[in-house]
Structure formats: structure tokens, C-alpha cells
């Protein structure tokens, strides 16, 4: 039964990866990275039990705690760098058009 749920998580990883590669805006890629991160936490939790070594949950715990620092850094990055802000909408217009 662990295989069923790992299969669902792996398929979701593919979908997130396709979104990350397609874009179109940079934020879609950040969203995909974030989704990928939470899916990795779930996959590791499930696989730890599949292998019968639940003491390896530390890895999932580490990701759950510090994965969102990257997204906060992205917010910080776009807020501080005027140059990149000017570039951001240009790339997003592609999506709307």
C-alpha cells in the first residue's frame, strides 16, 4: 500500500517538474519548486516506513523546517532588486499575450 501512495507522489513530481520546465513566468517555477519540496517530504516519510527505518524521518523534518526559507529569499530578492523587478513583468506579459 506504500507503493500506491509513492506512485501518486512520484507522478505529482513529474507534473510539478513539467510546470517548472514550461514556466512561463519565473513565479510558476518557484511554485513548482515549492510543490516539489513538499512532495519530497511526503516521499521520504513514506519511503522511511517502506524500508522499515522510521528513525530516518529526520531528513523529512529538516526539509519541513527549512524549505520555505528559499521562497522567502525569493520574495526578498524581488523586493530589493529593482533591475529584476523591471524584468519580471516583461516575462509575464508573454504569458498573458
Amino acid at each position, binding site marked *: *500500500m*506504500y507503493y*500506491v*501512495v509513492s*506512485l*501518486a*507522489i512520484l*507522478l*505529482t*513530481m*513529474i*507534473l*510539478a517538474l*513539467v*510546470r517548472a520546465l514550461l514556466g512561463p*513566468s519565473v*513565479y*510558476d517555477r*518557484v*511554485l*513548482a519548486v*515549492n*510543490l516539489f519540496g*513538499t*512532495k519530497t*517530504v*511526503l516521499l521520504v*516519510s*513514506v519511503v522511511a*516506513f517502506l524500508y522499515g527505518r*522510521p*528513525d530516518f*524521518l*529526520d531528513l*523529512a*523534518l529538516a526539509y*519541513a*523546517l527549512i*524549505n*520555505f526559507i528559499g*521562497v*522567502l529569499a*525569493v*520574495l526578498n530578492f*524581488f*523586493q530589493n532588486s529593482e533591475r*529584476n*523587478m523591471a524584468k*519580471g*513583468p516583461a516575462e*509575464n506579459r508573454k*504569458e*498573458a499575450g
Partner: protein
Amino acid sequence: MQIWLDGISFVMFIGGGAFVLIGGVGVLRMPDLYTRMHAASLTDTMGTLLILGGVIVQAGFSLAAIKLVAIALFLLVTGPTATYALANAALLSGVRPDAQTLDGESAS
């Protein structure tokens, strides 16, 4: 007793897997960034809770169960924060919701 626990966690796994997969499809198929974010939040809440819940049922009362509860709590707190930061960064740099989404029609 064991068969009941297995049954409960199996149902939770199926439910969680379905939520995760639907969210993933949504992230791929939704027309613009904000609707995609909405789809991603589905996997972050229901998917996470159900899958981790199913694993907790399997773990029983042990250190692993406490760690799993902690993982679920941290994911529930950090997920929305990350979504907030992302939506804020996108809005700041001028990404607007797709006009067609506002009319309630699919753009793709």
C-alpha cells in the same frame, strides 16, 4: 486490530494520493499563476494531512509518530507562508490574474 489499522491507513493513503495527484494536475493545467497556486495548496493541506495521517496510524505510539506530527504541523505552517511570499512577490512585480479567469472561463 491490525487489519483495521491497515484498512484505515490504506483509505487515508488512497485519499491523500488522490488529493496530491489532483493538485498536481491542477498545477499543470490551470490557466494562470494564481489559480495554479490555489491548486498547489490542495496538495499542501489535504494531501499532506491524509498521507502523513496514514503513516502515523501505521507508526502507532512511538517517537516516529511524534516526528510525523511535527512534520505535519511544520508543513501546515510553512506552506501558506511560502504561498503568501510567492503571491506577494508576483503581485509586486506586476503579474495580474488572467482576464479570462475572472470571467470564469478557462484560458487553455
